[in-house]
């Protein structure tokens, strides 16, 4: 499997590492050719001493190192957590992996106090927000802590975009009579208990709706709105595509559009309460952020997790509350109830 010439992941791996990217190269070739480019000292030093000294003594050490390198890469890619290689390569990869973690969780006061500790503890070079990794998701007890870290990461990198890889996508048509344009095409992203909602543009809408929208635009003569519309569509296509330069460019364009809409800085945008066209980009407000100070100790729960995602990015997080937050009235955890009901 690893030697598959057409492996996408391998292809991406090569290009991200700056290895020769040729279709005619197989894994063996790749290893033998690329190993000499890596400083063996770096690899040896950074390897966990309890795991690999024996291997390094073997004659075919080079090949083994190569394998280790691949394993490292794989462990980074899939968050296996076994390898802690902090090589130059890894740092390089980190940038590719998680440029813009965009998880948003509001913490309570007590949570906030814990954050710095957690952050220090987990300030490993791994750039992935912890809850997004399968390993971490399994550790239910640690979820809260992870969420706290996630929040900080989110705050620091608020300007970036969601990494929606690994999220299941579902197209939904939503009726919401609170707004005049009561029908919306949405893209729902879900990963376990985390829900994100993005606008789905230019598809599936009735012609009459398009007409109406056009009319609205024409009536208002609002160039800004038109720009927004473009933004939204570009956002959508950007989400749909696998990473790469194209996506980056589109996101840049998106940012540009947003900045044309908002004069204020991004922080202000995130908390903006101005009414936006619902179909364009929903204003995502951290609804309870302002009220957190008022929360009692007993009832402290992070709740409203809506957050602006890069201004015009039409993706919002609906929920990333730990599963323990919602449970059956009998006090039995939801998972248990589910199994009981079966």
């Amino acid at each position: 499997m690893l030697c598959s010439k057409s492996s996408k992941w391998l292809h991406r791996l090569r290009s991200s590492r700056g290895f020769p990217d040729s279709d005619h190269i197989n894994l063996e070739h790749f290893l033998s050719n690329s190993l000499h480019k890596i400083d063996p000292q770096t690899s040896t030093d950074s390897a966990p001493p309890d795991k690999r000294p024996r291997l390094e003594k073997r004659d075919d050490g080079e090949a083994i190192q190569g394998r280790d390198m691949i394993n490292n890469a794989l462990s980074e890619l899939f968050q296996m957590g076994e390898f802690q290689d902090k090589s130059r390569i890894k740092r390089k990869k980190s940038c590719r992996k998680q440029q813009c973690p965009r998880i948003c969780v509001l913490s309570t006061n007590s949570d906030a106090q814990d954050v710095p500790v957690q952050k220090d503890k987990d300030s490993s070079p791994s750039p992935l927000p912890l809850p997004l990794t399968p390993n971490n998701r399994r550790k239910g007890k640690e979820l809260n802590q992870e969420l706290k870290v996630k929040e900080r990461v989110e705050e620091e990198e608020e300007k970036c975009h969601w990494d929606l890889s690994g999220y299941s996508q579902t197209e939904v048509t939503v009726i919401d009579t609170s707004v005049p344009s009561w029908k919306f095409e949405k893209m729902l992203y879900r990963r376990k208990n985390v829900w994100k909602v993005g606008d789905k543009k230019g598809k599936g809408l009735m012609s009459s709706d398009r007409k109406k929208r056009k009319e609205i635009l024409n009536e208002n003569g609002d160039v800004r709105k038109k720009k927004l519309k473009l933004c939204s569509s570009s956002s959508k296509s950007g989400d749909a595509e696998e990473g790469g330069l194209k996506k980056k460019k589109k996101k840049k364009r998106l940012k540009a559009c947003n900045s044309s809409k908002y004069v204020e800085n991004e922080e202000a945008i995130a908390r903006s309460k101005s009414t936006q066209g619902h179909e364009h980009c929903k204003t995502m407000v951290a609804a309870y952020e302002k009220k957190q100070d008022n929360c009692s100790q007993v009832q402290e729960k992070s709740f409203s997790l809506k957050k602006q995602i890069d201004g015009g990015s039409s993706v919002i997080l609906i929920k990333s509350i730990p599963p323990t937050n919602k449970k059956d009235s009998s006090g039995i955890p939801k998972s248990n109830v589910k199994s009981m009901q079966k």
Partner: protein
Amino acid sequence: MEDGGSPEGRYTVGSRWFGRRSLASLLIEESLVKCDGLEIGGGVGGGREKSFQVFITNKSLIPLLVTLSLSNTNPPPGHIVTFVGFFQSCSLMGPIRGNKKKRKIELKIDNESVLASGSSEEGSIDWWDEFSKRIAGSVSPSKGLDQFESVFKVSRKTFNYICSLISEPMMAKTTNFVFLNGKSMSLNDQVALALRRLSSGDSLIGVANFFGTNHSTVSQVTWRFVETLEERGLHHLQWPSTEQEMAQIKSKFENIRGLPNCCGAIDTTHIMMLLSTSERTIDVWLDRKDNHSMILQAIVDPDMRFRDIVTGWPGKMDDASVLQGSSFFDLAEKGERLNGKKLKLSEGTEVQEYVVGDSGFPLLPWLITPYQGRDLPETKSEFNKRHFATRLVAQRALARLKDVWRMIQGVMWRPDKHRLPRVILACCILHNIVIDMEDDVLDELTLTHQHDSGYRPEVCETADKNASISRDKLALYLSGRLPA
């Protein structure tokens, strides 16, 4: 007239609107005719005695039922005849029985246009006569309902209103729907077919056999009906727009069990679906009871009228998440909903406008949920009882919605998940129309609050401190222990 009240005085309908056609046929074909600031929204003949039922909407889109009768039963050609009519308010404020305002109006109309009207009226009568003969034996009248109401779940009056409401867009499209015998379907036939499909819970083939057409026609007609009803009937489902309207709602809620300043009750139900094998792997639709379902969240007024709905989200989402994703949530958080004047409970104690919901929702300043836990002190348990009684209207409304519009009651067979929300919306609009029309059918329906049987209540532990304080004050107020 424009404020929703009944029009008074004498109105002359000029011949330029009616030409040489009969009143009834014109009202059906051109459903919106300007008339001294009024819009005549269509009409259907009401009997052989040359009387009409006409629905007129004013500029606030408040429907007013007008019964017109011809004062001169045999007028000579060219003569000006007078229609004497009574306005019966069907305002969106809901039925206030015993308070129906009937006002006399007179309409003068060019006689030429009236002469031919008899045939049209009779044609309308003939439709049901003919139709009931066709379906004779296949439907037995339910308890307390005549045959018409048993078949369509609405009274004849409401049926006529729905026809008039959607006649123009429904008949404007070029597609001609036909029965198996080749006869084309009239507006009444199409509305009847769609209502039957939505209300019976029968399959497409079942409804097709009932009407003598094929199942694809049933599907197409129903979908056109749904689209048209969305377009023309959405004003029946809207958040109260005036202070007066809101004041009445608050008053009615307070009359239930004393909760002051309450503006609505919120609840959520699941519309179940049987998905195709490939779709079943998408567990996003799998709810907590292991059914594939779509969520409907509704805010209901004390007359069980839907005031705000959100639907389309998959069953996996919990109540709090759906609420959080709704525009109502945004508006309420921004202070653009439930932002009316606060009610003073005692000196220094005020309560803002709010809706009530069960424990599946978060406790928020504008959303009051019951106290959780067992062995509550008396003040809190008493509050919970009152709270439950008040929010029961939402459960009843959802139960009635599913009971009457049975297409969304059972497990739908492989529905189009993009169309289903709109079918749900159409059913909610029809539910509201029945209430707005003060339909007698309502009186015959049993009240239940089981709309989501088998679903255990959810618990959301999220609470806002200010809301918690407000709830405590309300509990004290209701138990008479709030210091003056």
